[in-house]
Structure formats: structure tokens, C-alpha cells
């Protein structure tokens, strides 16, 4: 049984729902624009230019950009605008679907011969009659072509909605990527591709029916689409019936430790009869913003990250001084409760192959600074723009021959394959347990501590009290082994299985 199999129906339905909603919204925007275009070349140029520019923005970035935009909007208007989940996904995907719709629409209308338009007016058709009986009828095949392209693009891009907290088939893909569970990645991809093919085929039947003015294929296409809609509606109905009231939502960032801890807490709360939903694969900053906004109820974060990213501090304090300030300021500025310190640290560290470190005589980051100009550094995607890197540079005078960003799961591989000499690593990373790698710690105290913390959304102090029992219960050794169980290539365990092991090991069960 492939991991993620049981999550597939819900992910499929959610994926279809968000795709359809985005496509519908895009159609509502595109249709009037297209209809206004004939005779207004400036409008055509402007709108098509804008849509083309949008298309050059990677879909992932477009989704992510809507988060700060909506936060700005909320702050500017004072309205309760949700900045995560459905709304940003809907807006970004709709924007992304605009170009093919506009192209198809404008192209279809432009392809109508001038003589036909003139004749339609000359014989006394009203504007509405011209629109429906001539312009739209004639443009329909090209318009449908644009709609099909838009539908396929949207279904593909909707996998990225996972990153802003909207459930989709991306849940399977991103979880699989982080856990290096390629079968789960494949399952998510194939489900998305299959969905795209089915929708494309249904629209293709509609297109054929319209183009040849034949009802049977058009009806078959409509029936297929209706069947998909019924599937979504059925799932929604069932999900609604199943969860009386909103479940507690645990959000995770995109790495194994987060998945495992989320499963650990979820299992624990479920034993108390609480309905729990795990929303996995949130971007690092988005996870915190989500818990602050109440979009999720529980998140797992790290003191050093919160210190620099959420509080914007650049000073480095000892752990004993830092945690009380963090707890106070998170509550005061965001209403977020620091429910528990789990007991282990997942610190940023720099790592090298043991053989390289011995040859170059590197034992500390200070030693590393000496030889760094000849070495290549591989970092995770965010490290180079984080305050921690600035602080390391400042404290140690670190400077590398080159720096390149990698997806976290590939960094240890980059080191082993010789693509990089030094990598950024996390002290609780399971991959380090097996690898012949040396971790250099921060001997000058340039970095804050990265204690793993449980955060609880404003107004959920009940959960805060419940989670207090995790205080100091998880040691770094245990966490590292659990991470290795989920990350390793052979005898891989699912996050839930690793969480059960961790619960037994730490006596939390």
C-alpha cells in the first residue's frame, strides 16, 4: 500500500474544487474583457501584455505573493481578509488561467470575418443577437481551445496551492518529496495528470459538439463534467457530515521532523476524542503567519527562527534570556501562545565530509573561515537571505568561493556527490546520523538557539494547556532517529509510524 493512498480521494476532490473555482473566476474576469476588446486595440494590448507578464512569474511565486498582498489589504482595510488557504490560491490560480482564456477569446473573436459582422448588423440583428448567434457561436471552438489549455494549466498549478495552506494533490507530492517517498510523489503527480486528462477530454467533447453543432458529444462532455462535480459535492457532503464543527488544525513546514511531530500530537489529541486535521507542507514563514492568523491552531517552530523572522531581532542572547522574551513578545505582538519547549534543538549548523575536515584541519567554524574562500557552500533555499547568515558572516568573516541553494533533502546528497564542500545542516537532521559528516557548531555564539517549540493560535489556550505536557520530553537523539526512520531510503517508515516509535521511546504514549 502506497503511503498517501487513503488521503487521495479527499486530495483529489479538494484539488478539483479549487481548480474549478479558479477557472470559473478567471472566466468571469476574462469574458467581459474579451467582449470589450473588438475595436479597442489599446485594451487588447494592455490586457494581453499584463496577462503575459503574469505568466512569466513562476506559479509558486505568484501563489506566495498573494500572502503578503492579502495581509497588506487586511491591514489597509481592517477587513477580515483571509491571507492563507482558499483565497490566495483562488486568486493566483485564476490570474494564471487568464492568459489562455484571453488568448482564446480574443483570437476567436478576431477570426470572425469583418463581412460577417457587418452582415449581422446590416440584416438587423440586435447587439445581443449578434453576440450570441454570431460572435460567440463562431468564436466558440477557439474559445473552447483556450478554456482547455487554461483547465490543464490550472489543474497542474493547483498542486502548488498546498504551499499556502490549501489542500490539494500537492499535499501528496510535497510530503513525498520531503520524505523522499517517490511512490507518493508519483501518486500525486499521476492523479493530477489523470484529472487534467479527464477534464480536457470532457471539454474536448463539448468543443467538438459546439464546432459541429451536434448535441451528443457536447452532452457527453457535459455529463462527464457533471460527474466530476457530483464527486466533489459528494466528498464535501461527507466531509461536512463527518466533522461536526471545525477540527483542530496542525500545520507543518516542509520537512520530516514537522510531519512526525504533527502526527505525534494529532494521535495524542485524537485519543482525547478531539477531531484533528494535519495541513502539511506550509512555507516556513507562512506556518507562523497561519498560526498567528488562526488559520491553523498548532504549529511547530524554532526559537531562533521566530527570534529573527517574527520578532525581527538581530541580537543574540543566551537561551535562558531569550525564551522568556520570545514567549512575552509572541503573545503581545501576535497573540500566539508558546505552549511548550519540546526539549531538543534543531539548530542551523555547517557540515563537511569527515575526510575533508580532517585533511583541512577544520574543527570549528572559526577554522572553517580560514579555508572557506577555496570552498563551495550549498545552502537551503532560504539560508542566504536569513539574518543567521548575515550574523555568521559578521562574526566569523566567512566568505565562500561560491554559494548555491538546494532543496533541503538534496543537500546531504550534494555533499556526498562532491557538488558542494560545505552545506548548511540542521542539528536534528536524520540524514546526518548515517552520513560520515562533521557538524561544526557555533563556537562564538553568533546564532541564537533553535529550540523546538509548540505554538498555539490566539484564543486556543485550551490547546495550550493540553500541550504543556510536551515540555522537555523529546531529546535530540530520539528526534534524530525518528527523522532518520522517515528520511532513509531503505526500510522507510511513514511519519505516523515514526511518530508512534517516538511516542513509545519518549514515554509520551
Amino acid at each position, binding site marked *: 500500500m502506497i503511503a498517501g493512498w487513503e488521503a487521495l480521494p479527499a486530495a483529489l476532490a479538494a484539488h478539483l474544487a479549487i481548480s474549478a473555482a479558479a477557472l470559473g473566476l478567471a472566466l468571469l474576469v476574462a469574458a467581459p474583457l474579451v467582449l470589450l476588446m473588438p475595436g479597442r486595440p489599446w485594451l487588447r494590448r494592455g490586457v494581453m501584455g499584463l496577462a503575459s507578464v503574469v505568466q512569466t512569474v513562476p506559479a509558486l511565486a505568484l501563489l506566495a505573493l498573494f500572502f503578503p498582498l492579502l495581509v497588506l489589504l487586511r491591514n489597509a482595510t481592517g477587513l477580515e481578509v483571509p491571507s492563507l488557504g482558499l483565497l490566495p490560491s483562488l486568486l493566483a490560480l485564476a490570474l494564471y488561467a487568464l492568459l489562455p482564456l484571453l488568448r482564446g477569446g480574443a483570437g476567436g473573436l478576431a477570426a470572425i470575418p469583418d*463581412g460577417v459582422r457587418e452582415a449581422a448588423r*446590416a*440584416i*438587423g440583428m440586435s447587439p445581443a443577437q449578434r453576440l450570441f*448567434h454570431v460572435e460567440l457561436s463562431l468564436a466558440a471552438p477557439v474559445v473552447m481551445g483556450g478554456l482547455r489549455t487554461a483547465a490543464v494549466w490550472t489543474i497542474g498549478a493547483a498542486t502548488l496551492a498546498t504551499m499556502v495552506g490549501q489542500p490539494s494533490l500537492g499535499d501528496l507530492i510535497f510530503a513525498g518529496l520531503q520524505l523522499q517517498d517517490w511512490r507518493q510523489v508519483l501518486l500525486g503527480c499521476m492523479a493530477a495528470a489523470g484529472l487534467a486528462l479527464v477534464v480536457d477530454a470532457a471539454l474536448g467533447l463539448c468543443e467538438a459538439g459546439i464546432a459541429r*453543432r451536434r448535441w451528443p458529444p457536447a452532452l457527453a462532455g457535459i455529463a462527464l463534467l457533471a460527474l466530476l462535480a457530483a464527486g466533489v459535492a459528494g466528498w464535501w457532503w461527507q466531509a461536512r457530515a463527518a466533522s461536526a464543527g471545525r477540527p483542530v488544525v496542525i500545520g507543518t513546514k516542509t520537512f520530516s521532523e514537522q510531519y512526525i511531530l504533527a502526527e505525534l500530537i494529532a494521535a495524542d489529541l485524537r485519543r482525547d476524542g478531539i477531531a484533528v486535521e494535519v495541513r502539511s507542507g506550509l512555507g516556513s514563514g507562512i506556518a507562523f503567519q497561519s498560526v498567528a492568523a488562526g488559520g491553523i491552531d498548532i504549529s511547530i517552530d524554532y526559537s531562533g527562527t521566530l527570534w529573527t523572522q517574527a520578532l525581527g531581532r538581530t541580537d543574540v542572547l543566551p537561551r535562558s534570556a531569550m525564551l522568556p522574551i520570545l514567549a512575552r513578545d509572541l503573545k503581545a505582538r501576535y497573540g500566539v501562545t508558546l505552549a511548550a519547549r519540546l526539549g531538543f534543538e534543531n539548530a542551523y549548523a555547517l557540515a563537511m565530509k569527515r575526510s575533508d575536515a580532517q585533511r583541512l584541519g577544520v574543527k570549528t567554524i572559526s577554522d572553517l573561515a580560514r579555508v572557506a574562500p577555496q570552498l563551495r557552500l550549498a545552502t537551503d533555499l532560504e539560508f542566504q537571505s536569513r539574518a543567521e547568515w548575515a550574523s555568521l558572516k559578521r562574526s566569523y568573516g566567512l566568505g565562500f568561493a561560491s554559494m548555491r541553494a538546494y532543496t533541503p533533502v538534496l543537500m546531504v546528497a550534494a555533499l556526498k556527490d562532491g557538488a558542494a564542500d560545505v552545506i548548511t545542516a540542521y542539528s536534528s537532521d536524520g540524514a546526518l546520523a548515517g552520513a560520515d559528516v562533521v557538524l561544526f557548531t557555533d563556537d562564538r555564539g553568533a546564532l541564537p538557539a533553535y529550540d523546538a517549540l509548540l505554538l498555539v493560535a490566539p484564543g486556543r489556550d485550551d490547546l495550550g494547556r493540553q500541550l504543556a505536557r510536551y515540555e522537555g520530553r523529546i531529546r535530540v537523539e530520539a528526534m534524530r532517529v525518528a527523522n532518520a526512520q522517515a528520511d532513509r531510503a531503505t526500510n522507510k517508515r511513514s511519519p505516523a509510524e515514526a511518530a508512534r516509535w517516538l511516542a513509545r521511546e519518549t514515554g509520551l504514549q
Partner: protein
Amino acid sequence: MLQAPPALSLSGVTLALGGVPVLNGIDLVVPAGSLVALVGASGAGKTSLLRLVNRLVAPDSGQIRLFGADIAASDPVQLRRGIGHAVQGGGLFPHWTVADNIAAVPWLLGWPKPQRMARAAELMAMLDLPAALASRFPAELSGGQASRVGLARALAARPGLLLLDEPFGALDPETRTALADRLEALHRAEGLTTLMVTHDIADALLRADLMLVLEGGRIVAAGPPRAVAASPHPAVRALIDQPLAQAQALAGMAP
């Protein structure tokens, strides 16, 4: 005795499109039942003159009366349904069958379907279109057939006024003559008033009751073909002298 108003009259009509003057001070009276030929070089304003009559464009000044009534006071959509207009190039709806194309205006006017189809069949027979073409689409027609369908569409709702913009433009001479003969017969039989833009000067001279020569947005000669043919105006001579010389040369060759 009270005289019936003319089918169409224009007085002091001027039109500019996009700031460019197209028609300038057009005065014109078309008696009911006449076949009027509009001739002139390309860009002289012939098509615009037709488009003014069914309000596809509005004049900048001047007045246009149709059977005595100012068209500016009419509803343009209703007005157009009462005027048969065959636009340049035919403008057939590619997604409608031949019969539906022909019966377009009756459909707009709400005729019941049997009546529409009967009218379409009648017109197809009158214009020598095989009945089997009724369910075909315009892309399947020859140039001559498409022209006939365009003409049939203009005639379908029995309009009082017919506007024809180069109805035989792209046809070979034999087809053109046959179709023009048929049109002229229909025009006489149904008591129509017809305004026809044409480049076929000889045909216009031989068939029209009234001939108008346009140049640079003005009518430079108007009247019965015989009178117009005698006009010394350079624009008229430029149009007429060559076909006239050809006709004389041809007459000399006749056995």
C-alpha cells in the same frame, strides 16, 4: 393630386469617418421602383452611402428620408430589418445552413418556421439554386452560389428597398450576366427600389434607371444613363470612355 413620396431622399448629407471626410453635401432623390447604379473609383464613398441608408453609420449632418420618414427617428434594428442589404463579399454566416442564412431576416421578424423555409425554397428556385443546397453550409458553395444566397437573404423579407454592394463582384462574366438578368427581373416583378454599387459600368449603363457617379465623396453626375454617359465631367469620362470604346470596337467585329 397628392404625389407619393420618393422611396429615398438625401439632403445635404455629410459624413466623416475617423476625421476623414467620406461624403460631402449629398443631395439625392430616388423615385420608388427605380434601379439605381452607384459607380465611381474605389474610395469615392459608394459603400458609405449605402451604409448611411440603414444607419450602419450616422451622418454628421443632413437628413435621410425613407418613404417620407426621417430615418434618424426610427429604431435602427427595426429599420434594417425592413431594408434588404447584401454586404460586400456576401457576409454569409458560416455556421448557418444556406436555408437559415436566406431566412435570417424572416427569423428575426418572428415568422413561423414553415413559412421561413417556404420562403427560402421559393427564393432558391427563383435564383436557380438547387434545392439540395438548403442544408449545406456556405463553405461548400461556389462563388456564384454564395452570391445568390447573399442576394436571396437580402430579398427574403420582401423589403421595400434593396441595398446591394457589388453583389456580383467576384464572379465570371457569364455568371454575372445571368445573375444580373435574374436580379433585374426580380426587381421589376416585386416592385423593388434598388441601390446597387457596381464596377461593371457597361452593365450599369444598360440596366439602371438612374446612375450616380461619385468622386471624392460628391455626386459629380446623376441622371438616366444616357444623360450621364454624355457628361463632360473628367471623372465620368474616366469611367465611361474605356468601356464605350471597347463596346464600339466589339460592335465593329460583329459578323
